């Protein structure tokens, strides 16, 4: 394709990307470097029968005028990035100096809100993604071996977790694990502990959220892998069968290599999806034990005090996290592409 033709071909897409992706990011980065103006204070002298004294009051009009004139706030550079609510550089340095060991250091780190959210987000992402890949693959292989009359029904039920809204799905599970719910009551009976509560323990809450994440995301990998299995060359499978490969060896040497491009695709999508975990935290009402980066941003933006700059900073840090997370996969895809060319 000629450069000129390519330019006109790509222009609408490039313009849309600039408008809906690049500009919002620039806007968020700009906001993250500013903080709301402080209130304009005025000192007035009040004199009475007992003498005069200075009184400091907020000049509402001047404050409003300043904020209207400069709605972005005042420029503070990277101050918000380094404050306690985000990277907490000073607190981390202090923890590093005063901690006896790595365990103590990480323990102190987990008290800082951003790192607490980051810890759960990363744990969730790196646990749910491989587990949903494995579970999805197993379901796909199992469904593929079913009789064709059963396949439609099983595929429908297998896709249900993906069809249900994440918030609704997590709420359903939330009530099931309640002490009055079927899972909660069953666990109490199983462990003979009437006080056993999944919601009360941080560890169990994390496990619960991860299980929910796998349950919700596995259908996606299942449906992609199932489609991939339909394109599997039968000759290769039969050849492997005659060569002496067992079922497991056929899976390992023929089926999985055939599905690898799809594994990369699903992993890429799910890494991004899991990194922005949010709804289950709300659904499970688990903010006390587990918060994520997305929830962190939501928390800044909600409530009475809308901390726009803080939310913008968290957003930028999240974008950086996603970029770091996807870099190895993107580099590999790029290398594969170049190798083919």
């Amino acid at each position: 394709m000629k450069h000129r033709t390519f330019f006109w071909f790509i222009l609408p897409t490039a313009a849309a990307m600039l408008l809906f992706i690049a500009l919002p990011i620039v806007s968020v980065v700009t906001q993250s470097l500013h903080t709301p103006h402080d209130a304009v204070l005025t000192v007035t002298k009040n004199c009475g029968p007992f003498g005069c004294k200075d009184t400091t009051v907020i000049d509402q009009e001047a404050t409003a005028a300043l904020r209207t004139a400069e709605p972005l706030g005042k420029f503070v550079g990277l101050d918000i990035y380094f404050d306690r609510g985000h990277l907490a550089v000073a607190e981390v340095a202090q923890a590093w100096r005063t901690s006896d060991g790595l365990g103590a250091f990480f323990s102190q780190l987990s008290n800082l809100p951003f790192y607490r959210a980051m810890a759960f987000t990363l744990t969730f992402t790196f646990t749910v993604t491989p587990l949903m890949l494995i579970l999805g693959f197993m379901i796909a292989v199992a469904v593929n071996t079913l009789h064709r009359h059963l396949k439609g029904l099983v595929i429908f039920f297998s896709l249900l977790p993906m069809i249900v809204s994440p918030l609704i799905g997590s709420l359903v599970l939330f009530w099931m694990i309640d002490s009055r719910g079927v899972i909660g009551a069953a666990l109490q009976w199983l462990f003979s502990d009437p006080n056993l509560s999944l919601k009360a323990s941080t560890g169990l809450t994390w496990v619960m959220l991860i299980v929910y994440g796998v349950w919700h995301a596995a259908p996606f990998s299942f449906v992609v892998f199932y489609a991939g299995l339909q394109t599997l060359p039968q000759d290769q499978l039969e050849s492997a069968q005659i060569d002496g490969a067992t079922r497991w060896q056929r899976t390992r040497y023929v089926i999985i290599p055939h599905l690898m491009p799809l594994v990369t695709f699903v992993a890429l999508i799910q890494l991004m999806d899991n990194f922005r975990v949010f709804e289950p935290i709300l659904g499970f009402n688990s903010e006390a034990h587990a918060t994520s980066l997305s929830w962190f941003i939501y928390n800044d933006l909600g409530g009475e005090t809308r901390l726009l700059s803080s939310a913008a900073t968290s957003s930028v840090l999240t974008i950086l996290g996603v970029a770091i997370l996807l870099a190895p996969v993107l580099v590999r895809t790029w290398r594969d592409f170049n190798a083919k060319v």
Partner: protein
Amino acid sequence: MAEIQLRNISKRWGSFVGVNNFDLTIADKEFLVLLGPSGCGKTTTMRMIAGLEDTTEGDILIGGKRVNDLEPKDRDIAMVFQSYALYPNMNVYENIRFPLKVRGTDPSTHKERVLQAAERVELLDFLDRKPAELSGGQRQRVALARAIVRKPKVFLMDEPLSNLDAKLRVSTRAQIKNLSHDLAATTIYVTHDQIEAMTLADRVVVMKKGVVQQVGSPTEIYDTPANTFVASFIGNPAMNLVDGVIEGGVFKAQNSVIPGLDAPDGPVTLGFRAEDANVVESGGEINAPIYTMELLGDATMVSVRIGGALVAVKADKNYRAEIGDQVSLHVHTDHCHLFDATTGERMGP
């Protein structure tokens, strides 16, 4: 010892018959070719021997042992597929080594055996390449090397040359013949190409719609076809088949009067090959206008129409005439074949 016995094997899917009552013993070290058009059941027969399809009826014995219930890997066979069926993620070395690896053969012997197999098919220079980086002929040779590396008792080859161009087909065919001779293994080869069948086979099985039409050596099949289907399937060009009647030992059809045939009176189909007739000045048994002329290089193919049939005769390479010119053809009656006009079955010896 790898004699294969197929005892009345059949394959049916509902009311559709894939293979019907196939009964044959294939001798140890024999090269047997299953020949027929698409859908005749030749590949299904091979897949039943391989264990990739269950038989509906009948028994399959390899080396005297019933293998119907054995997995393909336990039948000691190797198979070469039309599509090559190479593993795209593995290089040539790994592809050839695969059967040794998955069967848990002593790893210290792998390299030597892979190199031996690769050398036999002239692939030593390509061991590091992936299948995608090979030509069609090279890929087929990888498939051959993978089949021979384990030294199985039986080789099954499913149209292995179909995807190759004409020139490569000839050289790979020679390679297969040579390999089969050297390895002295029982080989079953499926093809729809009668030239492959004639050049490779010790015996040929001609099939049609799941039924065996004739079993015999290439010469027997060529010289004494069992019916009009075999006669028209074997040979290039196919045997000329003309419908007519016998009256007092004389075959009569449109533009044709061929005397000296030993058969009872009545309708028949007469067959003769293009090389068993020649163009004469006059007085031939067939006299008709030329329908078409084809220059073959070593001969000139002259065709005339008799009734609905096209009859081709090989003339001298320098013979020239125009389409529509009257031509006289002499048919060697001792090379004529007579077939029942209704059933198409061969009449007489």
